[in-house]
């Protein structure tokens, strides 16, 4: 397929890898089927692609070590010409180094690699940049990363990405690699370096992320997915006069503002706002405390596995009082 393209014709490449059975197993844990990876012959052979004019690379649902290594190699090879990079990893995939070497020095490197991968599933794509003698971060205009761990090391990312050139940043599927080990220093770094974007999309819920939003200015499009936090007026104060698109789709667990007042704040203070995605909760309604978390906790409790409960509570950031209330209903 790629050899059929004439020289320098390829400017943008998007490839979405097939989903392996493991994804379905995660959803239906009772199903007894062997985990079967998709055949690797369907992966594109990146070595034969003429990448002379390729400036946009999108690789989705990377789920095997081979595809991840291919993608990492391709990304590093195109580091000077890429303007747009989009990567997503399959949720069930755990990166690892496949090697037959067993020398002590190499095993130490493998241990470091594994440790970083448990903190950051995207580490395999950053690894070549970290290894490079002279740091050459990519000067991207658009960066989209899906499957971000809370605990990724910002110093690794700074080896790979020049944050000052990025106009559109997407960090989605933000989730914990372990309970209580989130590292928010990336957002503090953005704040201290006065980095700003035109478009920003995330489901991260760190306080530092909101502090960064509050300290920056000039956003034209903002997509916030955090389920557990009210959008406070002061968070957007620096973006009032530039914001054209705003998306905050869910209610918070304990809203400090009614939707009417948030809407009023947004529409009266953002003179350029053309598109708005939001939720509407009738004033004095406290359903927002009840809609989403409880069904999940109920479902988790039926499994009678404490680990699941704690993980779920961490993910949805339930308050202790609510956990105790739900637990008391079942004991």
């Amino acid at each position, binding site marked *: 397929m790629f050899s059929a393209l004439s020289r320098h014709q390829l400017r943008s490449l998007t490839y979405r890898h097939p989903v392996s059975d493991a994804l379905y197993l995660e959803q239906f844990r009772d199903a007894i089927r062997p985990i079967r990876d998709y055949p690797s012959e369907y992966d594109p052979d990146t070595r034969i692609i003429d990448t002379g004019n390729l400036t946009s690379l999108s690789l989705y649902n990377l789920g095997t070590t081979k595809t991840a290594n291919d993608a990492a190699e391709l990304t590093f090879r195109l580091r000077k010409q890429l303007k747009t990079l989009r990567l997503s990893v399959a949720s069930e995939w755990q990166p690892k180094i496949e090697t037959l070497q067993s020398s002590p020095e190499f095993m130490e490197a493998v241990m470091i690699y594994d440790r970083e991968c448990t903190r950051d599933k995207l580490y395999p794509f950053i690894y070549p940049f970290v290894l490079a003698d002279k740091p050459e971060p990519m000067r991207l205009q658009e960066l989209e990363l899906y499957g971000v761990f809370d605990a990724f090391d910002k110093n690794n990312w700074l080896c790979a990405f020049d944050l000052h050139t990025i106009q559109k940043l997407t960090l989605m599927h933000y989730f914990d690699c372990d309970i209580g080990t989130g590292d928010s220093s990336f957002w503090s770094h953005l704040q201290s370096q006065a980095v700003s974007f035109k478009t920003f999309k995330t489901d991260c819920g760190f306080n530092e992320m909101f502090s960064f939003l509050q300290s920056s200015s000039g956003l034209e499009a903002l*997509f916030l997915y955090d389920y557990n936090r009210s959008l406070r007026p002061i968070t957007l104060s620096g973006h009032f006069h530039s914001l054209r698109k705003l*998306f905050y789709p869910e209610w918070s667990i304990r809203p400090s503002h009614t939707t009417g007042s948030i809407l009023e704040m947004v529409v009266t203070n953002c003179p350029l706002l053309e598109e708005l995605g939001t939720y509407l909760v*009738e004033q004095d309604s406290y359903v927002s405390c009840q*809609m989403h978390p409880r*069904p999940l906790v109920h479902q988790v409790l039926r499994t009678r596995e404490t680990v699941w409960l704690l993980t779920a509570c961490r993910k949805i950031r339930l308050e202790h009082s609510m956990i105790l209330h739900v637990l008391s209903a079942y004991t």
Partner: protein
Amino acid sequence: MQENSFRALDDSPCLKRLYVTSAITADDRHLGHNSFLQLFFDYFGSRKSPFFNRLELLSYDTALWQIVSTELNDAEREDMELELEHEPLSDGELEGLSSSSGHSHESTQAGNIGPPKEDHTEVTDDYEDDTDDLQLANDFRQWLTQPECYTWERVRSGFSRMPLKTLWVHYRNDELVWTVYEFVIGREPVFRPEQSATPSIHDWTDASDEDQSYAFQRL
């Protein structure tokens, strides 16, 4: 109901597209598509609202509507007059047309055009006589609950603008529209437990409305 939110939207200086992912009433109900649309048009349809006149796209949950003007252009007016000169097609004729088209998709659309079929004859008469405004208003509200609203018949509503249901896939290249689509389709549906021994569980799972089925629109 939802008046605080609608009043706030009314003050927007240049809002053109509104995407509502969910609406919860004071008694903890999740509004259905039809209820939301009726509330929206009951509030904005009868008042001079710059926001409403500017609005071009509206979504609620998994439904997406274009908001179009009810004023007819010359071609539409000619079509309307031509159509009024002829008797409406019977159900059998409609089915014949649909089957001759050879495409199931087209036949589905042909069957859904316009107000409900049982009102079709009366609609033509009402339009010509224009005697029963209240009946017309009721017809319109009933029609609003239908998934498709089409062509010149919208002029009968008395509203300056009308919702025209459209497909998300038409806006695949629009970033925010597609983001909303992925959000409303991709989120987990409300968990409905089987017969639970804990009565309190029903408090937050019994958010019923006429179309709470979460039967998501297929593209």
